[in-house]
């Protein structure tokens, strides 16, 4: 980018020409899904902002993107993550043992779940290791307080 457009872009907020400016990072996350021995089934879940909001409205684990994998192993995912007002990148996932698309529907008590934070963040490449070992627990139950 030449200097003049960069200068105009920098001055534009002062001149009132730019309504909003948001920053994003395109992250390629390498996820290693570890399941209890002998279990193999599709894995579903969601990507969360580890923290979002400010002050009294600051909350953990705000989901923003679905996650899906054919089974345990290494999965690569590319995410567009905002940098304004949010911190961190955390994956919650569970294994769909009975294939009904639901996590622990009534009568089902053995579908394992896990929670892990992708590091480093913010960065264009991050890694997370997720151990699916907690049957029928939600993200809130697995959250250790950050």
């Amino acid at each position: 980018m030449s200097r003049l457009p960069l200068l105009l872009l920098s001055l534009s907020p002062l001149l009132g020409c730019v309504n909003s400016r948001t920053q994003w990072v395109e992250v390629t996350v390498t996820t290693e899904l570890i399941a209890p021995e002998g279990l193999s089934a599709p894995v579903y879940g969601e990507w969360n902002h580890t923290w979002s909001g400010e002050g009294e409205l600051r909350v953990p684990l705000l989901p923003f993107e679905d996650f899906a994998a054919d089974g345990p192993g290494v999965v690569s995912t590319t995410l567009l993550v905002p940098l304004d007002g949010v911190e961190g990148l955390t994956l919650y996932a569970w294994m769909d043992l009975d294939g009904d698309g639901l996590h622990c529907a009534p009568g089902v008590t053995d579908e394992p779940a896990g929670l892990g934070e992708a590091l480093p963040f913010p960065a264009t490449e991050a890694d997370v290791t997720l151990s699916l070992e907690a049957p029928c627990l939600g993200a809130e139950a697995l959250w250790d307080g950050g």
Partner: protein
Amino acid sequence: MSPLSLLLVVAVSAPALAERPPPNPDPRPMGPPDPHLDALAGASEVGDWAVSLETGFPFFGARGQVALPWMGLNAVGSVNSALFTDTWALGGVSRRWVDTHRVVLSGEILVGGTIRSGDLSRRGPASQTTLRLARGHGRIVPALTLSSRHVLLTDVQEIQTAEGDIVERSRSIAWSPVASFDVGVGVCPGFAVSAGLDVPWFDPPGFSLPGAHINLIVGGWK
């Protein structure tokens, strides 16, 4: 008709002919300027100016106009704010398109900028086109104002990628019409007040509360 009867007809009709007022090429009455008419009509006559100060809910503001010596144009400056969170600063021109003894219709085009603070904050270059219909010329002037406001919103997204930074821009236009009805009263030469109702429509199709305002108007010759 005999000469005597012709003389009689002329003698009878002469006073009536003498009492008929001469044709007036300008139907507007002469006299001091009508600042409330000028302000509510949106444009002053050549040589005049008008300034109005507005207070009420939700709008506060000030507006000035001065007639220019060309083409009946007025230079107009306006600062207007809704609860001091949605502020518009505009300048431009206005002109009386129709001006009879009973009705004045004017139009104006203003450009400038707007800043809105709060959760629905926005900013950008703005324009406002307005039609004003006022019934003049008299001590009491009712007027209807229809305004169409537009804001050009430019949003910038800066994306960090493994290959480098990307800057994307998107543009949209936000539209906010406002209708007002005023009644202005001339208090004394060069000074008037008006009261009115506002029907703003911020960011259609959402609903906006109606409002009311009072104007203090001064004006006169340059």
